[in-house]
Structures are given as C-alpha cells and as structure tokens.
C-alpha cells in the first residue's frame, strides 16, 4: 500500500496533497468534458493513472482522521466513477478490472506467504474453533435472516417455501465470505503484529478454502429445492475435488519453482509476477483451477519450504503498493451507488445481522479456545469486510439460477458495498486499540542511505577491501 505509517507529515504537505488531488480531478473533469468519447483505450490508460494518484492522495488525506488507506482508495474510485462525477464510464471500469487477476494473484501469494507453520501450530486451537463455529452458525443464522427479510426483497416474491430455503442457504454461504485483500491491505498499511493481526489473517485465508467447498455443497443441495425438476447430483463434488486437488498440486509446484528462481536468479520479480498474474491466471481459468487457492499455496510453499520468504514478501509488497491502489479504487468505481440507494434498508439489515452474528461467534470461539483477552475483544473485527469472493459467488449464483440470480447478485453487491466500506475501518480501529499497529516510521531513501553508510563504514573497518556484491546492488537493494 502507499505509505503506511510514516513520519507525521506537515500541514503544508497535506495542503499540497489536497490541492494536487483537486487539480487532478479538475484536469480529468476538463478532459472528459472536452472530449466526452470515453470508450477508448486512452480512457482506460488515463483512468489507471488517475486512480493510482487520487487513490494514493485520498488515502493520505483520510489518514488524518484515522481512516484506513483502503477507504481512501475506495472513496477516490466512487467519486470518479460512473455514478458520481462520471470521469470514467462503465466500459472503462470494466476494462480496468483486468488488473484484478494480477492483484488477486499478489494478494493470494502474500496471504499464503504470511501463513507460517509455526504460527498455525500455535493458533491451531483458536483457528479450529473459529472455523468450526463461523462455518456452522453464520450460514444457518443468515439463512434465517434472509428468509425473514422476504417482504423487503423484491425478487423473492414468487418463490415457494422450499425455493426460499434454497436461496437462503446460498445467501448463508455468501455471508461467510471474508476479504483477504482488505485484510492484507490494512495489515500492509498498519504493519500490525500481534494476536489479532495474525489470527485474523490466518482465519481469513483458510476460510476462503472452506467457503469454496461449502459453496459447492450449497449449490448441490439448493438446486433441487429451487428447481423441483432437477435432481440431487454428486457431480459438483467431483468437480470440486478436481479443482481443489489440482490447485494445490499446481500451487505447490509453482511455489517450489518460485523459491528456486528467487534463490538462483532473484532478479526482476516484478516481471515474473506480471507473467503469473496475467499469463498463469489465464491458464488456471482454462484448466478450471482456483487461482486464489493456487497462488495461496504457492506463497505458503515459498514461505515454509524455503528460506526465500522474506525476499518474496518484500517483492510482492513493492509491486502491491501500486497494484492494490488501482485494484481497490477500481472496486470503488465499480460500486453501484444507485443500487445501494435502492436496496440500502435490506442491505443494512443483512449486514448488521451478519456483523452481530460474527461478533457473537467470535467471542464464543475465543472463549472456547481460551484466547487472550485482546482476541476476545477484537478478534472478530477483521471478519466483517467482504469483497471479491462474495461478488464471485454472487456471479456464480446469477449464472446458475437466471430466474432470481440477477436480483440476488444486486443484493450481494449492495451488502458487499456496505461491508467493504465499514469492515476495513473496524479492523484498523481494532488494530489501533489493541496496540498492534506499528508506529515506527517507514524508512525513506535518505534514512536507508544513512543506515547504509553506517553499515558500509562498519564493514570498511572490518574488511579493508570492498565487497563486490554489495557494490553492484542498486542503493535500494543494499543491505541496511
């Protein structure tokens, strides 16, 4: 992410950032009004640059009032998007989503690499209770809430009771999804370390796998309930088995190859990530493997089966600082504001009840696992955010059930919008309050160079002859 906790910036710096932000909006506003033809590649290129800049600047400005950077990215996208200032239209936004493949690959690899076997062992009890309870109770309760909201949901009007249960079940599983990207985004910004940060990350990454499995099961069960003519089939499980096993196998291979590459070559990881994000993602889609799972396993393997984890994470962090801004700002631009306006009462009820259930189960799981007090208090806070996976599942439902699918998807988008805005704020608040946020300033080049000079001086004292490897490195790669 851009920035992170850095040394407090002067008021003049903030003023400059605000002015440049306004100037950028003014510039693109003038350009779009001067030449309104937007369905061009130029529009897409400009939009990427614009979202990158305004997202970064907005994140710096919302930081003043303690909001997470991610909120700034989303806000920049919403304001510039097709529903507010219309600086980019739907076509441009859909073109921008091509960056999603790359962003999700980075997010998944980073998430996998953050999972360390030692940490998993230590928090196994906590993770097991949380996974068990969240996977059992959230779908059941949310299915009930969804059915109870039937009078407020237009597309449920014509459905029978059994069909209602089937749709409710799908909603229940959708409510289980979390957002690895938002979690990693906040962790990257805060550089938090502690039980809340690590257990949230571990849970969120593993819960994705659980959701994928449960969704396949939910589809299998709900289909005969929704469409009485169809029969119960185990074929979906077979497909799921192929997807999960294939993804794990490919992810393991990829992780080993990456570890070997980093060790033997170690250069141009950005180009390697680009090739993975665009090329391999495409291939995984063709093979019907799960990209998120594949990349997550790859990251896990690099971290736990080699010594290349730190370098791997550093390279992802450098690239992610740019890619994530565009990814989240695009998500903001893609937010259907009018739909949210139309569905906000029911969306609010569904989000509120999900949050309450998540909070309650979080506390219960912490108590059963005998977690420390800070976990009992804040352990649930990172589980509110929803993003890509929820939208992906809603798209699957929309394709599988054309009769109510589009309405289902619209409601999912509305609830994800609410959770996407509220969740990161809650999580950052929790990390701040639990004292896990890092307050050390990010190193700048000047501090790096100063540190480097100190190391060099010490090295020179110890070894009169220069170290050729160190000299050949660019300054930013030199050890400090």
């Amino acid at each position, binding site marked *: 992410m*851009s*920035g992170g906790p*850095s040394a407090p910036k002067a008021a003049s*710096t903030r003023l*400059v*950032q605000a002015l*440049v932000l306004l*100037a*950028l909006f003014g*510039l*693109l506003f003038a*350009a*779009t009004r*001067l*030449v309104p*033809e937007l369905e*061009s*590649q*130029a*529009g*897409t*290129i*400009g*939009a*990427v*640059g*614009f979202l*990158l*800049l305004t997202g*970064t*600047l907005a994140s710096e400005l919302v930081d003043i009032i303690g909001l997470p950077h991610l909120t700034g990215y989303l806000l920049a996208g919403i304001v510039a998007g097709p529903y507010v200032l219309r600086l980019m239209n739907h076509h441009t936004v859909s073109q921008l989503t091509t960056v999603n493949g790359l962003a999700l690959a980075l997010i998944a690899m980073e998430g996998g690499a953050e999972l360390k076997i030692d940490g998993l062992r230590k928090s196994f009890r906590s993770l097991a209770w949380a996974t068990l309870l969240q996977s059992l109770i959230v779908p059941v309760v949310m299915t009930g809430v969804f059915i109870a909201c039937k009078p407020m949901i237009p597309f449920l009007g014509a459905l029978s009771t059994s069909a209602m249960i089937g749709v409710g079940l799908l909603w229940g599983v959708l409510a289980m999804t979390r957002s690895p990207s938002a979690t990693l985004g906040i962790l990257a910004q805060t550089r938090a370390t502690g039980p809340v940060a690590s257990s949230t990350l571990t849970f969120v990454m593993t819960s994705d796998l659980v959701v994928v499995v449960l969704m396949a099961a939910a589809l299998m069960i709900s289909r005969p309930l929704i469409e009485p003519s169809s029969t119960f089939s185990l074929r979906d499980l077979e497909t799921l088995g192929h997807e999960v096993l294939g993804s794990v196998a490919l992810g393991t291979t990829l992780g080993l190859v990456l570890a070997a590459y980093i060790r033997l070559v170690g*250069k*141009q990881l950005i*180009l390697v990530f*680009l*090739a993975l994000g*665009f*090329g391999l993602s*495409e291939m995984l889609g063709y093979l019907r493997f799960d990209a998120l799972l594949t990349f997550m396993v790859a990251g896990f393997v690099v971290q736990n089966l080699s010594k290349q984890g730190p370098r791997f994470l550093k390279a992802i962090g*450098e690239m992610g*600082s*740019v890619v994530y*801004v565009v990814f989240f700002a695009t998500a903001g631009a893609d937010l259907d504001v009018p739909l949210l306006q139309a569905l906000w009462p029911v969306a609010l009820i569904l989000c509120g009840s999900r949050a309450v259930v998540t909070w309650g189960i979080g506390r219960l799981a912490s108590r059963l696992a005998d977690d420390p007090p800070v976990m009992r208090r804040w352990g649930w806070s990172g589980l509110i955010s929803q993003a890509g996976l929820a939208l992906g599942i809603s798209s699957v439902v929309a394709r599988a059930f054309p009769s109510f699918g589009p309405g289902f998807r619209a409601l999912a988008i509305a609830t994800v919008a609410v959770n996407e805005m509220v969740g990161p704020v809650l999580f950052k608040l929790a990390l701040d309050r639990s004292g896990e946020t890092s307050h050390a300033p*990010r190193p*700048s*080049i*000047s501090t790096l160079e100063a540190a480097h000079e100190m190391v060099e001086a010490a090295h020179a004292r110890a070894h009169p002859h220069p170290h*050729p490897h160190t*000299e*050949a*490195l*660019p*300054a*930013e790669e030199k050890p400090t």
Partner: protein
Amino acid sequence: MNAIWLLMGLLLLSYIGSLLVGGRAIRGMGLPSGAEYVVLGFILGPSLLGLFDRATLTTFEPFAHVALGWLMFVIGVTFGMTGDRRVRTTRLVGGLFVSLLSGAAVFAAAWLFLRFRSPLAPTDRLLAAGGIGAAGAETTRYAVRWVASRHHAEGPVSDLVNEIAESDDLIPILAVALLFALQPPAVAFHLHTLGWLGITVGLGLLLGAMAALLLGKTFRLAETWGVLLGMSLLAVGTTERLGLSSISALFVMGVTLSALSPHRRELRRILSPTEHPVMLPALLLAGAFTDFSLAKYLPYLVAVAIGARTLTKGVIGLGILGVAPAARRAGPRLGLGLLSAGALAMSIGLAFALRFPGPVGGLVLACAAAITLFGELVGPAALRSALSRAGETRDDPPPEVAASPIVPATTSTSTPLPTVSDDEGAVT
C-alpha cells in the same frame, strides 16, 4: 497468435532488456540501436510470418502507448545529462542544431518526393513528411554508448559525440507535438494549432510540476513509483484522448520533473534501468506494425529519406571538424558515425502509426524502421573508425573496468561515458 502468448513474449523481451541493463555476463550483446528487435517483430508480425495478426496487435496498442510514453519520460528526465553531469551549454545548443538540420533536410526531401510522387492530400503529406523528418533527426545515444563501451573509447571526440547524442532529442519531440496538433480532436470550440501545441507542452509542465510537488523533500521509493507511474499514465491517457502527442507531453514532464525536483539524481538512478526493459518490447511491437508493402513508392521514399539524412549528417560531420579542432583527428567519417538511429526514431514512427492509422502512419513507421536499420549498418562502424582514428579507442579494457562492474572515476579531463550495461542506474 493468442494475445496472452504475445504478452508473454513481450514480458520475456522485457526480461531480456533488464538483463542487458543489469547483467555483466552479456555486456555489449545485441545491436546498439536494438534494430534486431524491430526485425524480429517485422518477421513475426502480420507482414511476414503472421504469428500475430493485426487484431492482436490492436489489443496491444495501450501497451505501446504506455511504453512509448514511459520511454520518453525517462529520456526527458535524463535529457541534457551525461552521467550525473550536465551537458555543456554550447554542446547542448550544438545538439539541438544538429537535430534541427537533419530533421529539416529529411523533411524537405520527403515532402518534395511526396508532393510529386504520392496521392496524399496536402495535410497528410505535411504530416507524413514531418514525421519522417522527426524520425530522421536523432543520433541514438545508445549507439554512442555502445561503441564507447565495447571499444573502451574515452577522449574529447567521444565526449563531444556523446553530448550531441544526449541533447538532440528535444527538436524531434517538439516537432511531433506540433504535427499532432495539426489534427486536433473534434471539440466544440476552435483552437489554433499553436494552442493545441501549448496544451501538449502545458500538460507536461503541469504534471511534471505536480509530480515534483508530490515527491516533496523526502525521497520514499514506494511513493515515488506510485507518483511517477500515475502521472505518466494520466499524461498518456489525457493526451491520447485529446489526440495530442503523448510522447511529447511525457518528455516535457520528465524534463520539468528533473528541473524542479531535488531528487533528480535519485530519479535518474531508479528510472534509467527501466529504459531497456520497456524499449525492447516497444521495438518489437514497432517492427510488427511495420508494413513495407504499404505503397509502391515507399522504397523510393525510403531511399530519399536515407539519402537526405546521410548527406546532412556528412555535412554536419564536416562542420564539427571545422568548429571543433579536437575532433579533426577523427576525420570525415565522424559525420557518418552520427547516422545511428534507434529508440527515438522508432518511437516516433510507432506514435505516428498509432495516431494516424493508414498511409501517413504507415509511411512514417516504415521510414523510421529503414532509417534505424541503415543507421545500424553504417553508424557504429563509422563511429568506431572515427574514434579509432582519433586515438580514443583501446583494444583491451582498462584494468579497473575489467575488475569492477562500475565505471571507475577517471583521472582524465573528459567525462567517462555511461556504459551500455549495468552502470546506468547504479553509478556513473
């Protein structure tokens, strides 16, 4: 060919480009102008083998826009600099004059030829001749660095040629801005060509100044990349939307940023290594877009353009011998040594092909490719010969260079030339 395969191929080229910058093992490999990648693109492209068709190429137009813009931005940031030292004012003016003279001569010859031998309308004729002139104006600095690096050249003549090559980009880039402004976008109001030119330059100035403001006093690497990439993409997108020259706006942006930011040294250090990884895929794409069967008169046009350029460079070489006594030992081949063209010529050609699809863009790109290939055949050999005659080349590398990947400080009065390989970004 599937677009993903083409993307993977371009990434591979980019990877190779990064090795050329960063690796010592293949120092001096490849041709100085990068002409082999143009040829490779031409062979693989729709004109010859057809491994990727025009539709696939079209999907890569945004990549080409961004690559060209980034290249010009980097050239802008390093404009007028040789290593960490500014080019002397007299040589800067000399470089500008050399490019103006070459470009004007090629433009005049191409315009006259097109006037009598082509069916192009007057505006198209002006655009095509102008584009060919702009592409024919430069001497690529890569060739000069390459010769200097491979033959360990050092001395006043090497210095002079290097400084001319480092400062001759401004004229063709501004000419492109002017030419693009001749065909403004369809907007509700009328604005004079100079007004659109002003918008192109003004946009570069504005975004460059904003970037300098945002970078502030403390140089933070992650923030810097975000700002640089964001500003570059925004500049490319905005100028392309308006139908203006993105390469010119980005060049001006780079010059402005370099002038205003206190971090100009750090910027050059982090940006220079990105030049090759972006340039090679761009050259491949340019080669793939090239079509030599565009018009029957194209071979003659190419011959006229190359003839005019060769003649002018020859005259310029004689002029240099006249005004710079130290260069006299190099002999008349010095002018031919200035014939190398490469990244800038091909960038201008590709920019024209993207902005004016059809005969105008096709003619400019084909001529740019021909100028680059001819320059490759003649330029480096002539320059090596001239420098050798001036006594500035060595058969063996100086011991310090062989021992270290970093160009050493020299005790001579001349400035060591930046080498082709790993030193550009790291140390000069």
